[in-house]
């Protein structure tokens, strides 16, 4: 039997941050603008903190604690872009990184480590860009935080990428 995450006695809201802690995990070179905007709207409305989290996959032949410069070269500019955009909208940001053998493993480790009120993921990510259908189902089954899965939409092609901070990062 699996233990659900976020079962700590202290609720995320009690543990600092005022409003809710809204986790926005991403894995690839770009993130759906709709997902980011939804997360920012929620954070705005609730006086919460947006917590974008870069999930990195560690190849099996490397120790789990290995530095991942190539993955970071993709993830760090994107974290910067998200943070700049959110800060410009007045949304507090508290970024995270997590790594694992798979993206789900990385997310699982992050969820074990600290509490979140909401997790926002986009169902539009392709097979090469991170969380798969099974991962989303796993999220719903195992995470006690509110999970918001955005259904696919026509404007999903509009994405935020690290290019937004080219020359500024």
């Amino acid at each position, binding site marked *: 039997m699996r233990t659900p995450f976020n079962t700590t006695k202290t609720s995320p809201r009690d543990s600092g941050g005022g409003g809710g802690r809204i986790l926005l995990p991403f894995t690839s070179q770009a993130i759906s603008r709709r997902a980011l905007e939804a997360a920012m709207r929620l954070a705005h409305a609730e006086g919460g903190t947006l917590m974008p989290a870069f999930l990195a996959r560690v190849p099996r032949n490397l120790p789990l604690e290995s*530095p991942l*410069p190539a993955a970071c070269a993709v993830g760090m500019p994107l974290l910067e872009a998200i943070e700049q955009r959110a800060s*410009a909208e007045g949304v507090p940001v*508290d970024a995270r990184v997590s790594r694992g053998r798979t993206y789900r493993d990385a997310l699982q480790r992050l969820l074990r480590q*600290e509490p979140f009120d909401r997790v926002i993921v986009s169902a539009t990510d392709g097979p090469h860009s991170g969380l798969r259908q099974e991962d989303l189902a796993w999220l719903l089954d195992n995470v006690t935080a509110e999970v918001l899965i955005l259904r696919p939409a026509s404007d999903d092609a509009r994405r935020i990428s690290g290019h937004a901070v080219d020359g500024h*990062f």
Partner: protein
Amino acid sequence: MAAGVGKTYRMLLEGRVEREIGRDVVVGLLETHGRAETAALAEGLELIPRRKVSYRGTELEEMDLAAIIARAPEICLIDELAHTNAPGVEHAKRHEDVEDVLAAGIDVLTTVNVQHLESLNDQVAELSGIRVRETIPDAVLGRADEIVVVDLTPEELLERLRAGKVYPIERIDAALNHFFRIENLSALREVALRQVAQEIGQRRFAAAVNVGSREESLAAEAPQAVSERLLALVEPDPGAYRLVRRAWRSAQRLGAPLDLLWVRPPGTLSDEQERSLTALRQLASLLGARLIVEESDLLPETVAAVARRQRTTYILMGRSRPGRGLTRARTPLPQRLLELLPGVDVRIVADRAQRPTEDPP
């Protein structure tokens, strides 16, 4: 860069040129991997026969170090610098044999793939998913008088592979499916070119300072003078991550190690601070940076002590919070650090959150 680009071929070409200008050249060790073009180029060059080594009932062939030193040529060509020797010979690694050859006053031309460099091994493994076991310390490459990168586009290399110029026909499919994928080759090429650019930059600097009566001492100090080490001053709060990312980016561009320092005031941490500290540790670990936590009330002095200890050349910090009361009269931290650490650059990282955002097209 990778097997099949033509390193051995280039080494033999260089050897032939040296012989044509009258130098005494021998081949100490040659691996043709069955490539006819390479074997043809070696024809006419004196080859020192390999010696046989018995290991667990198997007869192996290794480079004959003693024979090379006894032959005492002016130049010796030794292929595959990262090779691991069979047990029972003088040294465990071929690069150690090469040290002996050099010590005997013999110049050496050798070959190595970029993924065999110790410092690049993790990076290449991450990029390609393949880890090579035979590595050489970077210092070995650092002692070379000249480095020549044998560059080939991934497309050309794949063409050579498919044409059977790299491996025998029966191994081609496996190679194409395993290591010889275009993304792997592109990544290796990038790493090789960057590495050589860095070496050239360091040598150019060393040459520029290598003048006057202090010639020798300056030349010896040059590698240290050009190597940067960054120190970012952080606190476990969300604003620190931006600073860490910026510092990491700078460190990547400079090819320099990055340390993060939190001068922690005495006392216990709140839950939120504990979480932020954990997140900061994770970020540091993922980026390959080292997080140092020092408990002290004396911020400038502690930063200066750590910077001296770590041989920091560059300090990055965020904007200080405005002081209150008497603290307003104190010298600002950047100014204080410049006083305490002459010769160390101090950079204040701006908060670019308020700059106009740009969308990609």
